[in-house]
């Protein structure tokens, strides 16, 4: 038996069924559908091969270029605002003695709500006339802000709701890793006279770096394919102010003028972007942080 397991062919035998299923349900559909990216298929009429025209069309459309910029804003917001806030919140919740379960549940609730519910909920909160937010701001004499209808405000409004929806989920993950840290380290530092802030910066954060690296990557990947919250809140509007690549895809592929060929091309572009970004991240920050810990 030992002899058998040394034979690479045996290993191949074990993985072939899995590989076959993987190819059948993932690789094969992906390759066959990729073909449509090079056609003008609209779902109804006969289609023909048009080469790279779809890709050229997409990149020459200023609306798509602004969608890419919006995706980048989503990523930057996730990395530089969301992730630090997640860590701060997790450390704060990790250090409270009483009602920790209550805080944990409270921050987690938004991520179990369906995005459609969140869209309606925040649509009401942001309502210019009757929404609680503007009602509150009016107390200070601030004029009605058209949160979702004003190009200036729509993007921040959607970013905030997206963060509100997902931060709790990540906070719970980070919190779990904080609570799993050996208590002795923090206690020893406290005895040495380190303040809570110093302990957080010099002990907790370095120790949870691997998990931070993971949530960082998940946030980037999530920001690349964000679409549901945009569709339920603004449908990419006003005038493309909140349009992201995926919502542009939905509009082009399944909108007023369905063009599945173009849609497939856009999805390939999103896939390529996500692949490149996560690879870049892994090669730079992801690796060095893992190295630190080991």
């Amino acid at each position, binding site marked *: 038996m030992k002899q058998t397991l040394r034979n690479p062919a045996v290993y191949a035998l074990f993985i072939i069924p899995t590989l076959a299923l993987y190819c059948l349900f993932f690789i094969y559909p992906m390759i066959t559908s990729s073909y449509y990216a090079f056609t003008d298929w609209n779902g109804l009429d006969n289609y023909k091969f048009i080469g790279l025209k779809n890709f050229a069309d997409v990149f020459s459309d200023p609306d798509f270029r602004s969608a890419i910029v919006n995706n980048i804003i989503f990523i930057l917001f996730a990395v530089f605002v969301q992730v630090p806030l997640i860590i701060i919140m997790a450390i704060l919740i990790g250090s409270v003695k009483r009602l920790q379960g209550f805080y944990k549940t409270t921050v987690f609730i938004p991520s179990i709500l369906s995005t459609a519910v969140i869209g309606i909920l925040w649509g009401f909160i942001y309502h210019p006339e009757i929404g609680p937010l503007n009602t509150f701001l009016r107390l200070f004499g601030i004029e009605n802000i058209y949160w979702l209808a004003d190009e200036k405000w729509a993007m921040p409004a959607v970013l905030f709701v997206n963060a509100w929806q997902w931060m709790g989920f990540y906070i719970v993950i980070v919190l779990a890793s904080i609570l799993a840290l050996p208590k002795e380290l923090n206690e020893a530092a406290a005895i040495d006279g380190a303040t809570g802030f110093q302990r957080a910066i010099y002990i907790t954060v370095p120790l949870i770096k691997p998990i931070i690296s993971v949530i960082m990557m998940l946030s980037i990947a999530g920001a690349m394919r964000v679409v549901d919250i945009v569709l339920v809140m603004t449908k990419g509007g006003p005038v493309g102010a909140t349009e992201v690549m995926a919502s542009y895809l939905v509009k082009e592929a399944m909108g007023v*003028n369905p063009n599945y060929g173009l849609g497939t091309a856009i999805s390939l572009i999103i896939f390529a972007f996500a692949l490149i970004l996560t690879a870049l991240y892994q090669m730079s920050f992801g690796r060095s942080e893992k190295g630190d810990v080991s």
Partner: protein
Amino acid sequence: MKKVLTLVLMLVVAASTVLAACGSDNKGNNGNATNQPGNTDAPATTAPTAEPEKVEPFSVSLRHIQIGESTKFRKAILDDVVKKTEDEIPGLTFELDGLEDQVNRFTKLPAEMAAGRPPIVFDLFGGAGDALKYAAAGRLLDLTPILEELGLSDRFLNLGQFTLDGKVYGLPIGGNTEGFYYNEVLFEKYGLKEPTTWEELELAAETLKSNGITPFAMGSKGAWVPLMLVNTLIGRYAGPEAIDGFPAGTQAWNAPEVVNALTKYEEWIKKGYFTKGELGYEYADMLNDFVSGKAGMMFDGSWRSSVFKDQEQAGELTGKVGFFAMPAVPGGKGDQTFVNGNYSNGYGFSAKANENELKAIKAFIKNLYNDEMQLRGLLEDGVLPSIKLSDEAIAKVDDRISTKVMNILGASGGAFSHYDSTVPSEVYSESESQIHKLIAGKATSQEVADALQKVQETANSRPAE
């Protein structure tokens, strides 16, 4: 040697596992097909015809867009038609599937059409971007023989948007025109009368504006809402022929007369005549804006008229709303007495309907498209009939807006349709994003016109398929 033997054994085991899985699959298929192995489709289609006497219960999917309060009258008519049809055809049950209009028209139905599996009966719009496109792709049932059998062939007022190569592929439920609704209470308060000329209309708007009332309620999150007004402005400034002229190549979008229409719209935007923050409001919000008295006028279709005789929806405004067509514009081209008129929304049927479903379709058409239901639609819902009604039937109409709408149509020189039914989808799609840019001040009327002309030219230069 032993190694090879083990390897072979493992291969056999693995292969037999895989094959066993396939084998049980085949067995399953054979079990279903009994005498026709390998052809699972055949029994499904032959089974019902084999024993026609026995009543087999069957269901027919029906997609409608009558959801929500403002379409409740229309829904009641549909429910009665469904019930009557179910009573007539033994074994039939309709599976009603209510969906929001835009979701059905622009998302779900196109996807179903692409997959070749639309519902058997479904809400359908006429014109180049909808019915005619699906008909050309062979997705829609040819209704010509059914209409002949039911004696309905010559009764429809206008089947133009559903007719391809002389065959009818859909039936409009009614007709409509788009015009201005106005709040009579507010008009009286500010000493305004129903505008009959362009100057009076703009004076009314200016007066309302200066009194802190929004002149025109607008919810332009869905671009089709502002485009209704744009379309009628084009019909006025560029003439009724312009709408058909775009796809024919005889009318350029960036010709001065069309740009004039867009410029007028732009001017109204700049003057703040529309609801503030309109880009964030839906079609339904526009009605709220108008009913609550925040806005004095609203450009909408005659299909909305039933709201204003329903206390529950219109509240204090019940019966205090007037309707007028867009007045002639100074310097407008063509016949200024034409009105916007559409026979575009109705029902289509799947080309894949089987024998039973065809029976259901026939009965559904018979029960929905008849004098009684058409008159009911007119009286209860304010929807103009799509089939010719007798004078005495028409005389029963007592609703003010419906009467006014019929008078407007009667006095008009003719009707022009909405360009969304004449131009290719990509042009309409472009007009949706361009109108948002115009509203947000990110494009001028000239830029909008140039962009549309560019897409139209590309579409017109494409060889017909």
